[in-house]
């Protein structure tokens, strides 16, 4: 696959703005007590910011499928590590041996 298109500077500035807004939002929402939603919202915003950086700053939106697959594989494997480890810790005591 030859070079993909690259984002225009306008796109870069828009993404930057979105990232800044996301950061401010995270900061502000953290001060409001939403119980269990707090970490979920914080992580959701973080994931959105990360996605924007990956797609636009790192040009993945304009890259080959292989690149996208590589990124996806990374997060998927991380999920394997986290989920399966947690499956031990969260179920201790659930079934007695």
């Amino acid at each position, binding site marked *: 696959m030859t*070079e993909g298109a690259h984002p225009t500077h306008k796109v*870069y500035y828009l993404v930057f703005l979105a990232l800044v807004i996301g*950061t401010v939002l*995270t900061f502000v929402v*953290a001060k409001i007590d939403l119980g269990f939603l707090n970490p979920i919202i914080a992580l959701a915003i973080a994931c959105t910011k990360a996605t924007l950086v990956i797609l636009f700053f790192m040009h993945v939106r304009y890259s080959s499928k292989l690149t996208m697959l*590589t990124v996806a594989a*990374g997060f998927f494997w991380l999920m394997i590590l986290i989920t399966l480890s947690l499956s031990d810790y*969260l179920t201790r005591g659930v079934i007695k041996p």
Partner: protein
Amino acid sequence: MSNSQTTTTDHPALVHQFDDMVQQKEASTFGMWVFLLTEIMMFGGLFAAYLIYRLKYYDAFVAGSSSIDVTWGFINTLVLIGSSLTMALAVSAAQRGVRRQQQVFLVLTMVLGTVFLGVKAIEYKQKYDEHHIPGGFFQTFAPTDIAHDLVEKEGKTPEAASQIAERTQIFFCFYFAMTGLHALHMIMGLVLMTWLLVRAGHGEFGPQYYTPVELGGLYWHFVDIVWIYLFPLLYLINRTHGK
């Protein structure tokens, strides 16, 4: 050396194992992505361990998180995001072969990166002053202020407060391990930028060959993404206590 007359098969930067510059760029870019994959897993291991302990010692993690300065963390996040912007613009300038712009944006990126490290140094010093460095190697770990806050502001009993305060040691282990590993990557990023700056100054990059800058950009953005996650995970565990 100008890059307007060279074709993709006789460019001076073409190495012997590749047939042409297109293949070289594709392979190099893919290689950097695979490397970033390994970095995701390395930081990921730390994140997984952090998650497990956060679930196990939630109160201690809240207490530890509340004791680090969220304003510095917020500023640093903005600084890094800004440096990602300047890096993306540097890559764009390299692609267009505009030497001045490349240098300006690379320098800006490095300045912002250095600011980030400076702020981290301030934060680490704060922790040192407050006796929050775990382990006893650098100083004795003495979270008396945390225990005090727990009693005064949260209404915990002194015994419970001192237990939670002791447990914050694990939080601080992760704080230093995660931000420390991240800072190490930042420093390596700055070294990388310096090298790119020198090469950009020689006019090496243009539409036919700007891969090193692109790859440097990928690395830099990755380090930014790690921080994007670190900020809420370390600084914002529970900030609704009015601290």
